[in-house]
């Protein structure tokens, strides 16, 4: 007798009691796996993987004033973190300065407040930009944030070819899932392509886009949907770049990815392996890439915020550890581990430290990273990897049939699929068919309250005053000229990046530059789907 539970993955793929070679009929190691660092990269993008270099431990951080986040950055580096990851506040992410009426109540709350180059300089004060890689989670205003970062490098005399890091800059998934936008899909993608083109020529070690499944998953997608829509977005960017006239091998090596790592342990490992294999095949066969670097998928990962519970918050430490282990077994290049208190507020220093230590523990105590793709060849995992691949290709085929991802988004297809999946999953939780420990099972009536991070109310006022002072000290004629230059570049074509870099150096603000995008391209209106 088997227990009365669903024998399937979180995505609904059926699970057999056990697996044998019969499940892998026709499966050839040479075709499906290859060696690590070789086509089709199933076992990992690099030949030596973690024996050569551990994944980058990159904790997403940002709150309050730039000075506040600067201190958190320095703390994390002192604690052994190996890369920076910047969280911006909602006004910066949506293209408003700290003194804008729409920024009320939001300044420094969900990330760090940045309006002008002055703020960005304070954020990176004392941080060696030529030595540390910096990731910035910012999308519709990513072009402006990159311009500021490059302007700081110029001011400090650091050559751009020494700068390493990643802009998230994935607008397609914004329309699908995270939903921070300014203008409609086509102009948004055009600016992404400008950045890909510009960094390929001038900032060669920078990843101009991090094609992200994380937000798609967090919005309620299944692992299969996350895998499929993320790769469909990647295909969308490659098509847009090729249409621009770029040679695929000139930019593809710098495309990077970002996946969620959720609770279903083996499905998540299979997802990362399937992602690498599909991408390698797509790049080689669909886009005719010749360089192996264009075919190898490198990915950042983050444990699933959506899986964390507000109830019994310490349980999240255990969840995160298991998810992080799956990310490592899946061969991630970079990892953020969530803090246990994030269902209540931004994390405290104590909670972040436990999350970082979880990674260090996997890296240095478990011995897991000493063998490359240690689960490779397991009948079950290989079968599951094949199933994930097939299910994702099926979705990608549907997106292709709709005319590509931009059309699919306009028709609301991925958004509807995700909303449906989110609702199904919630109903399963409500009925107790999907167990959430401490919430719909093993719940406890009395909850101890936890210590959490409070953002000082004065941050908003101070940041608004600061941007006011910076604006007042500028030459208004210069500002007007810069804004006009950007508007003309947006209207008549040409790459926006050089214009933006000049503009931020003259202290033109993020909000003012975003206003140009709003005026020239118009505002995106979402289809209301629920």
């Amino acid at each position: 007798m088997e227990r009365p539970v669903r024998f399937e993955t979180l995505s609904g793929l059926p699970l057999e009691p056990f697996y044998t070679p019969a499940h892998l009929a026709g499966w050839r190691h040479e075709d499906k796996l290859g060696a690590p660092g070789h086509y089709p990269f199933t076992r990992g993008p690099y030949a030596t993987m973690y024996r050569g270099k551990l994944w980058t431990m990159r904790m997403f951080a940002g709150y309050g004033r730039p000075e506040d986040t600067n201190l958190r950055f320095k703390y994390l580096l002192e604690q052994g973190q190996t890369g920076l990851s910047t969280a911006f506040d909602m006004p910066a992410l949506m293209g408003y300065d700290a003194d804008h009426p729409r920024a009320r109540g939001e300044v420094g709350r969900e990330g760090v407040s940045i309006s002008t180059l002055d703020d960005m300089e304070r954020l990176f004060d004392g941080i060696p930009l030529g030595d540390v890689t910096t990731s910035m989670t910012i999308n519709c205003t990513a072009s402006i944030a990159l311009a500021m970062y490059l302007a700081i490098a110029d001011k400090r005399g650091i050559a751009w070819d020494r700068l390493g890091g990643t802009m998230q800059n994935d607008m397609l998934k914004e329309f699908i899932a995270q939903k921070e936008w300014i203008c409609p899909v086509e102009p948004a993608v055009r600016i992404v392509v400008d950045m890909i083109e510009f960094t390929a020529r001038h900032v060669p070690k920078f990843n101009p886009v991090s094609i992200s499944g994380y937000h798609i998953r967090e919005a309620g997608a299944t692992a299969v949907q996350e895998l499929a829509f993320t790769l469909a977005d990647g295909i969308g960017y490659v098509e847009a770049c090729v249409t621009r006239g770029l040679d695929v091998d000139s930019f593809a090596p710098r495309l990077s990815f970002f996946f969620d790592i959720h609770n279903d342990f083996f499905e998540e490992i299979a997802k990362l392996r399937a992602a690498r294999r599909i991408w390698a095949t797509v790049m080689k066969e669909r886009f005719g890439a010749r360089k192996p670097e264009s075919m190898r998928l490198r990915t950042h990962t983050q444990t699933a915020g959506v899986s964390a519970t507000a109830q019994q918050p310490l349980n999240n430490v255990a969840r995160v550890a298991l998810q992080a282990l799956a990310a490592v077994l899946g061969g991630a290049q970079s990892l953020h581990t969530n803090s246990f208190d994030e269902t209540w507020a931004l994390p405290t220093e104590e909670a972040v430290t436990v999350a970082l230590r979880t990674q260090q523990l996997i890296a240095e105590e478990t011995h897991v990273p000493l063998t490359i793709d240690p689960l490779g060849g397991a009948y079950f995992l290989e079968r599951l990897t094949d199933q994930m691949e097939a299910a994702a290709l099926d979705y990608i085929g549907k997106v292709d049939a709709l005319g590509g991802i931009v059309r699919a988004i306009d028709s609301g297809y991925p958004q509807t699929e995700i909303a449906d999946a989110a609702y199904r999953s919630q109903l399963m939780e409500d009925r107790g068919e999907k167990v959430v420990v401490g919430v719909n099972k093993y719940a406890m009536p009395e909850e101890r309250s936890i210590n959490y991070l409070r953002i000082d109310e004065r941050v908003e006022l101070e940041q608004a005053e600061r941007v006011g002072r910076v604006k007042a000290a500028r030459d208004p004629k210069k500002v007007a000229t810069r804004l006009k230059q950007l508007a003309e570049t947006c209207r008549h074509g040409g790459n926006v990046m050089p214009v933006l870099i000049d503009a931020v150096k003259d202290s033109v603000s993020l909000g003012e530059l975003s206003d140009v995008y709003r005026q020239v391209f118009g505002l995106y209106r979402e289809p209301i789907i629920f």
Partner: protein
Amino acid sequence: MSERKVRVVVAKPGLDGHDRGAKIVARALRDAGFEVIYTGLHQTPEQIVETAIQEDADAIGLSVLSGAHNYLFTRVLDLLREQGAADVVVFGGGIIPPEDVAALKAAGVKELFAPGTSTQDIVRFVRAHIRAAV
């Protein structure tokens, strides 16, 4: 005379784009037989109150995950009072620390649901506390 259905505006005030919860709640309330108007994202408190008044709503459900809840919830409550619509019940959810929950309830928010709440609990709340205006 048949009683009018309870009408709920589900809204996303502020700038954050986390709409999974809002959409699930909107759909659950609709499936439970209420009339639901979902505003979509990035709404100002002014837009939300205007929608509620135009749609003759009995309640507004606000979802905020950006940490801007203190300003946004109280602004909606203030605007409802200013416009003589203080009878519209305001409830909500999001990433809201316990201290803020207590303060917002004291300010007039009827209920705040933490992550992990079942849709059935929200449906029960609406059934128990919200009546259709005649």
